[in-house]
């Protein structure tokens, strides 16, 4: 089922037995390095190494990973094209005229858009590493370790559970509408979508009421079990994560001056 794709992949990934704090440290560390890196080199190295880790260690099928990555990359590419032609400075490289406007790409704008592209790509890869290697359930137990408020964790858990119920309901309603010609034409689509939203809201409300009864029937007294996991952190993996992050930081210092058009 496609609506469960990310969750399915994360639950069966090759790194699921690894301590989730370590995975979050690696992912968040890499994101920060990407965002602060002054040159496009380090983020691209991070993107490449994350791809290797995700496909090699987490055993995510390469075509699935490529398909997932395509979504944010498509956004990033379009934004970078806009920046390439709209920001200025440096020598002009290329000029086009669109509807009477003259758009010019310069060396500085090329540098900037490449840097942005690399940062987004690298950070997205690191974010996908977290999403694909750490099931949500493990994130909850990290939240607990971080002493986040219990109410916040309880709510997140309920929300996580209900996302899938709502996706299921929405798909069911959508199918029922499509089967009766609901989305044929723009006007009908707007009508159908508004009905979908309306009935989803009412169903959500009903579900909430029913859940309260279900909780009451099991003596709800404000307590919620937070799953705990015991995966000992091996020194070797901690060292590997540490040296990876340190290596990336050093690289980004070394290449701090590296640009496409100096």
């Amino acid at each position, binding site marked *: 089922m496609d609506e469960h794709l990310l969750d399915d992949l994360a639950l069966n990934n090759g790194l699921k037995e690894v301590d989730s704090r370590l995975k979050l440290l690696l992912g968040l560390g890499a994101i920060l390095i990407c965002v602060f890196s002054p040159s496009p080199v380090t983020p691209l190295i991070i993107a490449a190494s994350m791809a290797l880790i995700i496909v090699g260690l987490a055993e995510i099928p390469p075509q699935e990973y490529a398909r997932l990555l395509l979504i944010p990359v498509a956004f990033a590419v379009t934004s970078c094209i806009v920046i390439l032609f709209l920001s200025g400075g440096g020598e002009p490289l290329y000029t086009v005229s669109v509807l009477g406007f003259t758009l010019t790409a310069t060396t500085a704008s090329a540098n900037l858009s490449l840097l942005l592209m690399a940062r987004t790509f690298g950070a997205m890869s690191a974010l996908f590493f977290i999403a694909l290697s750490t099931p949500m359930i493990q994130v909850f137990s990290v939240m607990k370790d971080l002493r986040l408020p219990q109410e916040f964790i309880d709510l997140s858990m309920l929300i996580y*559970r209900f996302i899938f119920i709502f996706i*299921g309901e929405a798909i069911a309603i959508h199918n029922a509408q499509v089967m009766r010609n609901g989305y044929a034409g723009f006007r009908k689509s707007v009508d159908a979508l508004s009905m979908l939203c309306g009935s989803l809201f009412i169903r959500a409300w009903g579900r909430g009421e029913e*859940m309260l009864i*279900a909780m009451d029937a099991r003596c709800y*007294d404000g*307590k919620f079990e937070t799953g705990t996991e015991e995966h000992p952190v091996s020194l070797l993996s901690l060292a590997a994560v540490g040296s990876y992050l340190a290596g990336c930081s050093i690289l980004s210092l070394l290449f701090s001056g590296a640009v496409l058009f100096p």
Partner: protein
Amino acid sequence: MKTDNPALEFDGVEYAYPNGPVSLNVVSFSLSSGSKIALVGPNGAGKTTLLLMCNGILRPDRGKVRVHGRPLSYDRAALREIRKRVGFVFQNSENQIFAPTVYQDVAFGPVNLDLPSGEVREAVHRALFSVGLSGFEKRPPHHLSGGEKKRVAIAGVLAMDPDILVFDEPTSSLDPATAAEIMDLLDELNSQGKTVIISTHDVQLAYSWADQVVLISEGTILHQGTPASVFTDPDLMNRARLTIPPVLELFMTLRERNIRLGDVPPAGIPEMAHQLEQAIGCGSRRTAGHIFVVDAESVSGEDIRLRAAERSITHIGAMGTPAKILAGTAEIPLDFTYGVIDKCLLKAVMGEDTLIITSGGMIERVHHRILSFSREHGIEIPVSDLDGQTSPVS
């Protein structure tokens, strides 16, 4: 299993939903402890309303609900106590399972009963084991099948160790095999001494499964009695918008056509088949097959497999979680995993030897069923364990 002291009593209960029509109208009945009760009625008869009163979710406008002789009171502490004793399994398991993992959901009740964490873990493992889902602790509910979700919902209730279990439409939206397995699980829970109440409009299910049937229609109780007494009354069935269970209907139709069947309505296919055989007069004189019954908790799987091969037993069935786990680990090929006793009886009548692996209180249930079948039909079906030791019950 059944005792005479009532587990649950409704005394003149009336209820109307706010701004709604009367949903229950002077409902009185009493259900004996340790029995299997089916609440049968058409859609909108008030079955769910009635069940929701068993653990104080709904409060009757008039009348009393008594659990083990004590009238329900509706303050917080009393409700907690009653909800611990009366477990409620919802029709739609999706509504009942709200935690992100199976473990967390099953632990919900015990945690809210303030059990220490060690006991919570123990209760969860025990509950998951008894529904046959050990090892599913970390799975999120949206990765489970319908039958598995139902089992998780049941485990969530069992973890609080209630002695009355209430199931609203336990088999709705399950495939037939899964539904039969869930009903076997209910039997297993009943054999552990729990009173089990289900609501259903599946007449065949109610007829073959229940000790007691409460027939409800338009908010009033039409009849309470044994399944045979309820389902053989066409007038009653009509009024309750129900149909007569197929086995019974066949029995009644054949009798109307002057085919001489027995006086006792058949409890299931084995009885019906036998009565027909007798009536047509080709009642064969072949010797009945042997039914071996082994206790999954006292014999090793390896042993069972070897001995079954030695005795060239052709059909093997397993009842209950311990037996199924044993058969799984010892790689014993199972022919029957649900409706086991009836299927083995049919084979036995055909002269084939069968083996039933089971455990606990269900051993007695197997012996009891086979014995009453033999008595009723005058067929001697030998029952023993693999050593030839015969029945522990008379």
